[in-house]
């Protein structure tokens, strides 16, 4: 529920009702929402921060003073400096003196020339890369030349290269699609006065373009004329904002009648901006007065023309200036918690690195000082050079400098302590994980044919640690497919519709049968009343009620062909699901909306076709919270129909009349909303001729006003909408999505707290809470509805004492539910009461917030996020959820009925709420487990290697020689050991999907940081030191008295390290599929091959060493000994803990293995919706 509930003022309680009339809203929103978004109230620092990141999203409706925006919307006149002058059909003059951007688009980030510098610049934003670059640079200093230049650059170059290739490929794909797009053709008015095809990229500002039905618009155009005589055109904006319903756009009457080739004039419009819902311009048409143009007169690039055979427009924004291009924005970038924790360990490793280097430096300094006098006599040191004319020291700068060099050299040698390959591995692993999430058929929504989307690529593993889920209600828990359920007409409740017949009411037009696409069950009593069975007065009231439902809306009927030639379906297209439901309901009761143009409406009233003139329409706005139409009826009466939220409507009814009806209607409304229905109240007033005339002149004045139009119109509407007769009220059901109660139950078992934040009324929210099993009857409800700060405080204190009393009552405590409304939250959020609320809310099992504004949603998320380490997830589908989605650690958008604003702001998007269960419990669990293991393993893997190097340095007079050939050192983390960890990181599963869904409690492993914590890190590092000792000292002791050479022993060491770390990984793999086998054993084989290749290069000192080593039994015995001695402690510990201190995951694995899933002790819950046969 978003679009139809434009947000409200943050300081005032948001009582705009969801049930309200929707969608006139969209257009009213359009006039203002962007300006609002740009002018974020400074009081809300949270959202300001989060919004900074995504200023490109015009979609968020942020609450602010509405009046401000109205002023901005229409009172501002564009000054010449801020304007763009477009001479219609005169591109030459338009593009003088400044040529506007042409219509070619470029979404690529790089060109051939800028690719390298720009890509590198972007990549070096990562501190680790800078570190490696500095070290590679240091290595080029002759005194510090530890590696040959090529070898020192290679790892960094490899990592940069892989990323660059990936970026380059993505960019190339963008380039290709740009090229296709730029070369599409459109009909452009040529000087000869006829339309000729022209390539999109050549279209200039000022040119007149003709677009025919179902074509995509090439640029942003002001409508000049359309095929419809009234100047209406329908566009679909699915590519722009994802909303699939049709939007109406109008050509101005002043230009509509002019043939396109003779159109001329000057349009003054705003400079290009990214607000897709706003447009401000005026046109000087020859022979007419100046006309003002608004958002309803412009059609935007990327939209498709529908239901209109052609339109002609003048290009005003082209290419990069178009709104769709200005709105292109990247996915949000967040950093996962695991990565934040990882950085802590990276710092520990850096400390360890400095420690190792310091040890080597001190020892080297001492050694040099001790041998200071004999350095030249040392045959292996020889500091003096006699070859020159005079004796000189050779490559020796005194003990002090040599010590400093020792330090720098040791940093270069031991640099891999900070695992460079980890960063690229993490990216690849996340890519792989994202692939599997997208491919998961259990997260494919059959209904909307949408699959899961990963928009943020770096927080996959956060999905495994979620503690709080903040959910929107409408469209998230519910389907947002409204169904008309019951009506109260004249105070009489007709809610027996469920027993009524399914009425496929159809009408006959020119021999064809037209039938509404959706049938609605009708109530026989109401039908009877309508037909006059209960008196003429009731019948009239009922007629007016349904007439109001059929007319007071912005729905466009569209005829859809069916296989049967004589049968056509009427599809009611509109921007609000509520309105659609009402129109379908009216049709079922015999009031079939057949046609709507800007001037009139055709309605088939029980078989008789009647034409109603639309004399005026007051759009919905969130101050009035109602909309109205003025209809000229066939019987020459003029009627004002109003529909709106109950609290806004009861303010404008005629109070001294129909008191009984008002009272009865209120009672009915209350019972509807406690059933979880969305309610609307419908009223009407007949206008006398005098009243109508007065209204008409005021209306005309207002519509032509250039300044303050919006405000004037609103005043006129408020003036007209008074002294209404109550016709009745409607109850619309928003059905729960499939599987929601089960999903909520699973999450509850998984230790995830589900909070529902909704703009709905409290009664509606509570009833939905019951129906989705969020609330249960044994729960104690704490309700906070307060109107002042003091009472809020009191209520919170009561709640706190109550919760502590209940908690103290012992193990048999009944669960608590906190229900709080937006009015109370106004006095709580961002005050010292927040802390109180936090305490109360965290002791409650369920929190339900009703009537909350978008910013309050974000505030509640922040309440938890700022006070705990727990991970938060927000899920929603509408624009009013955007701020909450951006605030939470993980934001999920439901790609549902209400447009795509939420999806655009989200990190992940999916079709159904229930997909949260496989997403969190299965993929989240796996991702977390995999990533946690991979990070630990990468730390371990590089540290083992560094320690082996370190032990050797102790036997080289601290001169930092490395026995392992430099190429092997370089390839170690990029080839020898890289692939298995990536494969395992993508594919390994500790538990099957089935088990994870069967025992949602297993999810708590992630919440407890079970797979990655400081203890595990330290344990791994201790293991790593032992293993390095085994690797180094077994060969050392075995070859102590032999004639082995550096390279031979180095080869033994590198092979031992690689085999050992791969075996270590192999021991921790949960599931061995062929890919795991191939990568682990393949890597060992690849290492052997690489070592052999390196030792086959005669240039290198290690030539043929490996063959000589392999020819001796000692070599093989050492290798075997190292592997066994290295692994024994780990293996024993693993066996011990798995058996005697088993984790839940371990037990579940055993369960899986032994198939004795006869877990009778466990409460079984139906999981058929998520589990799949395995």
């Amino acid at each position, binding site marked *: 529920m978003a679009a139809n509930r434009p947000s409200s003022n943050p300081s005032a309680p948001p009582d705009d009702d969801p049930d309200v009339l929707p969608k006139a809203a969209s257009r009213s929103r359009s006039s203002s929402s962007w300006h609002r978004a740009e002018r974020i109230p400074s009081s809300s620092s949270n959202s300001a921060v989060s919004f900074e990141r995504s200023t490109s999203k015009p979609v968020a409706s942020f609450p602010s003073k509405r009046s401000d925006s109205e002023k901005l919307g229409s009172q501002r006149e564009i000054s010449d400096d801020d304007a763009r002058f477009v001479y219609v059909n005169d591109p030459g003059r338009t593009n003088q003196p400044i040529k506007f951007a042409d219509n070619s688009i470029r979404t690529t980030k790089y060109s051939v020339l800028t690719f390298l510098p720009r890509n590198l610049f972007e990549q070096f934003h990562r501190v680790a890369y800078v570190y490696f670059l500095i070290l590679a640079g240091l290595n080029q200093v002759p005194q510090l030349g530890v590696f040959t230049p090529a070898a020192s650059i290679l790892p960094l170059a490899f990592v940069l290269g892989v990323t660059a290739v990936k970026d380059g490929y993505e960019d190339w794909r963008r380039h290709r699609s740009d090229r296709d797009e730029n070369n599409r053709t459109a009909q452009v008015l040529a000087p000869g006065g006829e339309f000729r095809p022209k390539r999109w990229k050549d279209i200039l500002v000022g040119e007149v373009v003709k677009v025919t039905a179902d074509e995509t618009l090439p640029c942003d155009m002001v409508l000049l004329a359309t095929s419809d005589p009234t100047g209406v055109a329908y566009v679909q904006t699915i590519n722009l904002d994802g909303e699939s319903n049709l939007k109406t756009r109008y050509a101005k009457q002043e230009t509509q009648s002019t043939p396109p080739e003779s159109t001329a004039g000057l349009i003054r419009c705003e400079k290009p901006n990214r607000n897709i819902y706003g447009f401000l311009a005026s046109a000087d048409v020859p022979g007419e007065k100046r006309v003002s143009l608004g958002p309803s007169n412009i059609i935007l690039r990327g939209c498709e023309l529908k239901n209109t055979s052609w339109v002609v427009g003048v290009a005003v924004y082209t290419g990069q200036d178009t709104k769709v291009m200005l709105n292109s924005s990247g996915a949000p970038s967040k950093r996962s918690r695991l990565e934040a924790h990882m950085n802590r360990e990276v710092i520990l490793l850096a400390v360890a690195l400095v420690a190792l280097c310091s040890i080597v430096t001190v020892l080297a300094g001492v050694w040099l000082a001790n041998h200071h006098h004999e350095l030249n006599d040392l045959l292996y040191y020889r500091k003096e050079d006699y070859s020159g004319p005079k004796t000189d020291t050779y490559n020796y700068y005194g003990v002090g400098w040599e010590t400093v060099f020792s330090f720098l050299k040791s940093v270069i040698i031991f640099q891999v302590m900070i695992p460079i390959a980890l960063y690229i591995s993490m990216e690849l692993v996340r890519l792989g994980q994202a692939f599997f999430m997208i491919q998961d058929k259990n997260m494919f929504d059959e209904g909307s044919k949408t*699959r899961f989307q990963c928009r943020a690529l770096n927080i996959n593993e956060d999905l495994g640690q979620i503690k709080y889920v903040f959910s929107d209600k409408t469209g998230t828990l519910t389907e947002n497919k409204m169904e008309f359920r019951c009506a109260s007409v004249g105070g009489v409740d007709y809610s027996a519709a469920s027993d009524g017949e399914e009425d496929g009411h159809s009408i006959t037009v020119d021999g064809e049968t037209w039938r509404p696409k959706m049938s609605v069950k009708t109530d026989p009593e109401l039908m009877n009343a309508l037909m006059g069975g209960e008196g003429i007065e009731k019948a009239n009231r009922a007629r007016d009620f349904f007439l109001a439902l059929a007319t007071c809306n912005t729905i466009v009927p569209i005829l859809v062909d069916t296989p049967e030639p004589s049968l056509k379906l009427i599809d009611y297209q509109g921007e609000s699901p509520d309105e659609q439901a009402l129109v379908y309901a009216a049709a079922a009761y015999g009031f079939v909306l057949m046609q709507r143009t800007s001037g009139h409406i055709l309605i088939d009233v029980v078989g008789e076709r009647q034409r109603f003139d639309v004399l005026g329409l007051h759009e919905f706005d969130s101050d009035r919270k109602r909309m109205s139409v003025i209809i000229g009826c066939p019987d020459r009466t003029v009627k004002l129909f109003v529909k709106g939220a109950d609290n806004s409507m009861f303010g404008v009814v005629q109070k001294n009349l129909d008191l009984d009806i008002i009272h009865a209607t209120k009672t009915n409304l209350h019972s509807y909303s406690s059933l979880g229905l969305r309610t609307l109240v419908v009223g009407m007033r007949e206008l006398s001729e005098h009243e109508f005339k007065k209204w008409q002149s005021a209306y005309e004045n207002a519509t032509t006003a250039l300044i303050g139009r919006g405000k004037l119109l609103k005043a006129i509407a408020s003036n007209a909408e008074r002294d209404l007769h109550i016709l009745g009220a409607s109850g619309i059901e928003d059905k729960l999505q499939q599987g929601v109660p089960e999903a909520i139950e699973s999450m509850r078992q998984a230790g995830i707290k589900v909070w529902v934040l909704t703009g709905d009324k409290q009664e509606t929210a509570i009833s939905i809470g019951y129906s989705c099993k969020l609330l249960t009857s044994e729960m104690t409800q704490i309700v906070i509805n307060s109107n002042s700060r003091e009472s809020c405080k009191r209520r919170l204190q009561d709640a706190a004492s109550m919760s502590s009393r209940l908690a103290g009552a012992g193990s048999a405590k009944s669960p608590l539910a906190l229900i709080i409304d937006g009015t109370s939250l106004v006095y709580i959020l961002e005050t010292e009461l927040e802390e109180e609320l936090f305490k109360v809310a965290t002791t409650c099992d369920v929190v339900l917030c009703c009537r909350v504004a978008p910013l309050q949603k974000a505030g509640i998320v922040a309440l938890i996020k700022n006070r705990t380490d727990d991970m938060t997830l927000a899920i929603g589908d509408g624009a009013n959820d955007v701020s909450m989605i951006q605030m939470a650690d993980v934001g999920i958008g439901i790609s549902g009925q209400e447009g795509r604003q939420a999806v655009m702001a989200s990190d992940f998007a999916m079709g159904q709420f229930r997909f949260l269960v496989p997403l969190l419990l299965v993929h989240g669990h796996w991702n977390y487990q995999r990533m946690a293991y991979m990070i630990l393993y990468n730390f371990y893997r590089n540290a083992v290697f560094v320690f082996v190097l370190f032990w050797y340095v102790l036997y080289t007079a601290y001169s930092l020689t490395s026995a392992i050939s430099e190429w092997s050192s370089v390839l170690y983390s990029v080839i020898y050991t890289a692939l298995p960890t990536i494969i395992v990181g993508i594919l390994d599963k500790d538990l099957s999907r089935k088990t994870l869904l069967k025992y949602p409690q297993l999810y708590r492993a992630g919440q407890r940081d079970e797979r990655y914590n400081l203890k595990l890190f330290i344990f791994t590092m201790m293991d790593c030191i032992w293993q390095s000792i085994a690797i180094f000292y077994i060969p050392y002791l075995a070859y*102590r008295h032999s004639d082995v050479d550096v390279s031979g022993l180095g080869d033994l060491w590198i092979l031992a390290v690689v085999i050992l770390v791969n075996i270590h990984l192999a021991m921790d793999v949960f599931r061995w599929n062929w890919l795991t086998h191939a990568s682990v054993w393949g890597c060992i084989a690849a290492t052997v091959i690489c070592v052999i290749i390196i030792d086959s290069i005669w240039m290198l000192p290690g030539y043929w060493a490996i063959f000589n080593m392999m020819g001796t039994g000692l070599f093989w015995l*050492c290798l075997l000994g190292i592997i066994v001695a290295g692994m024994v402690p780990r293996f024993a510990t693993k066996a011990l803990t798995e058996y005697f201190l088993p984790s839940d995951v371990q037990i579940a694995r055993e369960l899986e293995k*032994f198939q004795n899933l006869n877990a009778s002790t466990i409460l079984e819950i139906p999981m058929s919706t998520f589990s799949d046969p395995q």
Partner: protein
Amino acid sequence: MGDSTSPSDGPAEPRRKSKKPKYSRFTQQELPACKPLLTPMIVVTTFALIGIIFIPIGLASLSASEQVVEIVYQYDVDCIPEQSQNDKVAFIQSSVTNKTCTRTLTVPRHMDGPVHIYYELDNFYQNHRRYVKSRSDKQLRSKASEKVTTNCAPEATTSDGSVIVPCGLIAWSLFNDTYSFAIDSKTIEVNKKNIAWQSDKEHKFGNNVYPKNFQMGGLIGGAKLNASIPLSEQEDLIVWMRTAALPKFRKLYGRIEMDLDANDQITVTIQNNYNTYSFEGKKKLVLSTTSWIGGKNDFLGTAYLTVGSLCLFLAMAFIVLYLLKPRTLGDPSYLSWNRNPDGHY
């Protein structure tokens, strides 16, 4: 990679998204897989198996090492005459002193030929970073690259600028003590052929590269080379240039291609030329037979025995533990939420 979405993806998106994921075992992450689990059986078997394999290997290595007969004689101090003991460096650097040193060694057990002759240096860092780099493999291999002496300083060129072949500190410091052996005044032939690796001789050291300007500088490091023999046949040099991994190392000097009987008295004549005295390096002469694990080496056998018995012990310990505290694998009552159900629900 964060900002990789672009509007051009946009228009394509609805089309792509609407594709239903294709079902395959791979995409659903259901590849057939084996799920190993550390059951008590597997743990005990593994440890027992390691023990059973390692102990015999350890015993075999120990016995192989036992069969190796090794005569080690440290002569660096011994071979300095009494009067020069206080200033060994001066003795060794002097060009006039008689550095011949004759000693008698007793063969403790029968030694099967060939008997390998090694010299062992200690405290000599052939793996020092300055040292290992100080060579030119290109120069060693081909005459054409004679001038390539990039890393060879300070032994790259003579003081007049002509290149030294072989250049570099390694070659310059070539070991130059020599040994000759006799039993009962009968000289024993020392075979100095094929002491270097065949691969080095064939591919690393060129047969058309001859020593040039070698040891002509102000400071003599070690042995001189016969300028008429190509490097590929200078096997002492080739052996020396295989730099040792550790500061204490042996290098093959030659072989005695005959058996030595127990209690044979071998007279060794040592030309004690090599200066290890300035840095307290030790020099030893080693005569040794070989076995399948190389020279005398008790460590590996001991290590295998230790690891093997440790594993046997662990196998036993695990059996005891499993018996004392048995747990049914996969019993759901051990799950944390079943053990303390009131924690959460």
